[in-house]
Structure formats: structure tokens, C-alpha cells
């Protein structure tokens, strides 16, 4: 249940898997993303509402062949240039994309968490997103005849999230902006949670989301594992790091050097804790 980050990724993330690393600006599982690159996983379908710089890194490193998303950017800075390079120039490899709106993606996770094959929403109507994927369909209300939109459930092979705390039995506690993480974990076949701390007892916190251990496959203690995003109550967002990513991301060679230095040049344990610490 409590594993090292290296072990957690090795056991739970396989080549060709559909993998969601979720987080809405807050609690982004960055260290886990780097460990996936370090373990040279290939052929992943990456899923996330808001792919940001860690997805840019995974795409630039060639881990992914497909991206399912609703907004891909460097929040507060601009575009993701490794993502652009993959879509516009197939570098380092072609990247197939399937895009949705936030409302659509959120409801796809809700359907996945609920054991339903699809969700219904008022969305997409009149946009050019319709027709770009078979995963947006019209549906008629059997009571009013009104036409709405259906999207299919998302059920990742594995969802990875970062949280503030877990207890030794594997119950996970997060608070602050908790985004769609509960649904993404409940929708997944397996889940890996990196946490700031493992504690004996989870003292209740206002606004908390608690993920019971029976929906958590493994927990890895990775202090700082969300940096340069933030962990409410632990550390702040490193806005400079997001700014600094822009020039690195724009240049293939600079990105390559960054990858060697910051990912391959480090052990998993150096980027965060492990079970032994």
C-alpha cells in the first residue's frame, strides 16, 4: 500500500496505458510525471482536463501517443511549446489528440466514477468540437424531447494524483482546490497517490476530500511532489518556474538538456521521498 515512487510507477503504469495525472493548478503530481519519463514509458494515452508543463514534458520526452484534454497551456504564461511541436510538427513523435470542453471532461470522469457508460450535459452545441471526435453525441430527453449532449465515460487504466496526507492504511486526504481528483481516482482501474506526509491519524480539515483506502491502489510519500505547483498548507506555487519553462519549452535542444539534467540526471528519491524516509 505504501510504496516508493519508483515502485509505484513501475507497478502501476505500463506501456500503452491510459493515464490521468489530474490536478487543477493545485496539487499537480509533477514528481510522478517525471518518474514516468525516467522509467521511459511509451505509447501512453495521457488524459487531463488541464495539461500543463508536466504534460509538456511527458509529450516532449516521447512518452505519449495520444492526449485527451480540454485546455492545454502554461497557466498565466502562455502556450505549451512541446505540445505545439508535437501537434504541428510530429516531434518527437506524432500526437493524436481528442479535445473536449472542461464541462465535458468533468462529466466524463463523473460517468466513469459512477459506473455509467456516458454522461449528459448542456454543452458543445454549435461548436466545431462536435464532429471532431466520435466521443460527442446528441441525446434526446425521453420526457421532454429536448436534445442534449452525451459524452462517454472516462475510465483511465491508472489515475495519479498528489495529496497533502495519507494515513498508514492508505486513506488519502486533500483540501483546498480539489478539482476533479476524486472523480478521476474513482473512475480509474488503479490509482497512485503521492503525498506530502504519511501520518498516523488524519485530523479532519474543513473542505477536505477523503479518498478511502479501498479506492487507492498505492501511496508514495513524495514531499514537494507537486512543485512547481503548490500544496495548500505546505508550500506555494513557484510562479517563476512556470515563467522559466517558456524558453526551455520553445527550444528542442534546451528541452533535451533540461530533460537530461532534471529528470534522467536524478533518482526518483532525489525528487521526493520514498517509503524508507
Amino acid at each position: 500500500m505504501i510504496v516508493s515512487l519508483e515502485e509505484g510507477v513501475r507497478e502501476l503504469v505500463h506501456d500503452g496505458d491510459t493515464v490521468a495525472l489530474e490536478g487543477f493548478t493545485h496539487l499537480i503530481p509533477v514528481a510522478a510525471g517525471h518518474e514516468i519519463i525516467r522509467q521511459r514509458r511509451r505509447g501512453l494515452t495521457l488524459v487531463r482536463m488541464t495539461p500543463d508543463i508536466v504534460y509538456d514534458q511527458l509529450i516532449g520526452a516521447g512518452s505519449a501517443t495520444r492526449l485527451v484534454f480540454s485546455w492545454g497551456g502554461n497557466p498565466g504564461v502562455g502556450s505549451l511549446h512541446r505540445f505545439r511541436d508535437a501537434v504541428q510538427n510530429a516531434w518527437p513523435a506524432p500526437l493524436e489528440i481528442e479535445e473536449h470542453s472542461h464541462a465535458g471532461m468533468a462529466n466524463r470522469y463523473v460517468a466513469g466514477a459512477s459506473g455509467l457508460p456516458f454522461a449528459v450535459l448542456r454543452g458543445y452545441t454549435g461548436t466545431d468540437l462536435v464532429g471532431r471526435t466520435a466521443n460527442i453525441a446528441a441525446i434526446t430527453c425521453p420526457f421532454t424531447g429536448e436534445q442534449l449532449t452525451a459524452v462517454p465515460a472516462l475510465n483511465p487504466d491508472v489515475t495519479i494524483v498528489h495529496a497533502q496526507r495519507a494515513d498508514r492504511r492508505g486513506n488519502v486526504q486533500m483540501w483546498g482546490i480539489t478539482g476533479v481528483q476524486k472523480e478521476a481516482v474513482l473512475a480509474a482501474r488503479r490509482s497512485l497517490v503521492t503525498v506530502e506526509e504519511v501520518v498516523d491519524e488524519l485530523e479532519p480539515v474543513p473542505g477536505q476530500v477523503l479518498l478511502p483506502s479501498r479506492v487507492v491502489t498505492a501511496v508514495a510519500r513524495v514531499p514537494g511532489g507537486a512543485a512547481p505547483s503548490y500544496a495548500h498548507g505546505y508550500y506555494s506555487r513557484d510562479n517563476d518556474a512556470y515563467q522559466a519553462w517558456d524558453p526551455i519549452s520553445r527550444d528542442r535542444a534546451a528541452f533535451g538538456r533540461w530533460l537530461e539534467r532534471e529528470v534522467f540526471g536524478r533518482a526518483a528519491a532525489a525528487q521526493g521521498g520514498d517509503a524508507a524516509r
Partner: protein
Amino acid sequence: MSTRGYSSDEVMTVTAARALADGMACFVGIGLPSTAANLARRTHAPNLWLVYESGTLGARPDTLPLSIGDGVLAETADTVVSVPEVFNYWLQPGRIDVGFLGAAQIDRFANINTTVVGDYDAPRVRLPGAGGAPEIAASCREVVVVVRQSRRTFVAAVDFVTSVGYGKGPGERERLGLRGGGPSRVITDLGVLEPDPRTCELTLVSVHPGVEPEEVRAATGWELAVSPELATTPEPTADELAVLRSLTGR
């Protein structure tokens, strides 16, 4: 900064802030919309109720958030809900008075593109994508677009309809079953455009101080209609500028 003592971005932001009445519920995107909404909250609209798509309801940030998911939003909110809940329980049922959107391209019927420039399958520029915008554009009682004006951005027809304004013209929102009212104005660094009540076509209704209508037409990729009652935007007040600069740290 012009000789007038404020920049064109500043008059844009102040004008956008003024579009918000006190007590409104406002769905805020990051960047210009967030600056304008927070300026409004600090000036004439202290009870503006800010909703960010990260799930913070009623946020009262004391500093300008740098992303839609900043910690300051969670700390100052009335409550924080999940992302599914903010879209399903708050945006979709029409509880939001005004949605603030940006655009990479906008066309004469106020349709917005934030997806790709060029062909979808071989894009010239791949943009971030839809995010919350399609449903904000569909469901809010009205939508205000804040965007700098240029021929690159103001195009006759967008390359990709990410968010529907008035589609191909009058009656289209109704045909599509969209429940929100659609874009009520587009506020740029040059002036203010509003949809013509009859044709739905964006029409210049106000120019910012010192801006000539011809400048605005030259920055628009279609034959821009100009209202016969063309106004000049009221200047930002010293108080508005002071608050804005304290927010942006300029």
C-alpha cells in the same frame, strides 16, 4: 502609456470592470477578465460574486491571482466545490449573470476561437483549446469578451468555433437551444463593440479617448459597422487607475 496618463490596456480593463454591476455573479477566466473583475470588486461592485472554474465560489482575493486555481482563491472563497459541481450546479443551470472571456480570434458574429489557427488537422498555430469557454458562452446570462483588437484577432470568420457567439446570425442561438443571452459587448484596447440588435453583427458603439473610428476599422478584419450614436468611452478615473495599478503592481 499614452500622454493621457493611462495605457490602452488600462482603459480596456477599466471599461470591462464597469460592465459588472454590484451583486452580479461573474464567471471569471484568468488574465484580463480576472483583472477587470477584481478591479470592479475593489471599486463600484464590492459584492461582485466571483466564480472561478477551479471551483472557488465567492472568492475575494486580496492579490491578483496568477492562475484560476491559486491558493488565495480557495482561502478567501465562501466555499470551494469540485470542478464537476461548478460546471453542473452553477454554470449549467444559468446561475451566472456574466461570463468574462478572452479570445485568440473573434468574428463579426462574436464567435470565439481559442483552439487552432489554420486547418484543424494541420494547424498553423495550436492554441490551448476550449477550457470552460464553450459552456460559459452558452449558459451565462450575458458574455463580455475582453481582447486586444487587431486584424489577426478580429477576423471575418473564425478558423474554428470554440465558443458560440451568434453563430451565423439572428436566431441561431435559439435554434441551437443555447439558454444564455450571448455576448453583450466586446471590450478592446480601442473601443467597445456590441452586437446589432437586428443583425447580431458586432458594431462599434464607443471608441476610447483619442482613438479614431478609422483606427478601429483598420484593426478589424471585416467591414466594421459603426453605430450612428458612436460614443467616446468615459475616461478611467484616478481612483480606478490607482486601484488597477495597485492590483497589477505597476
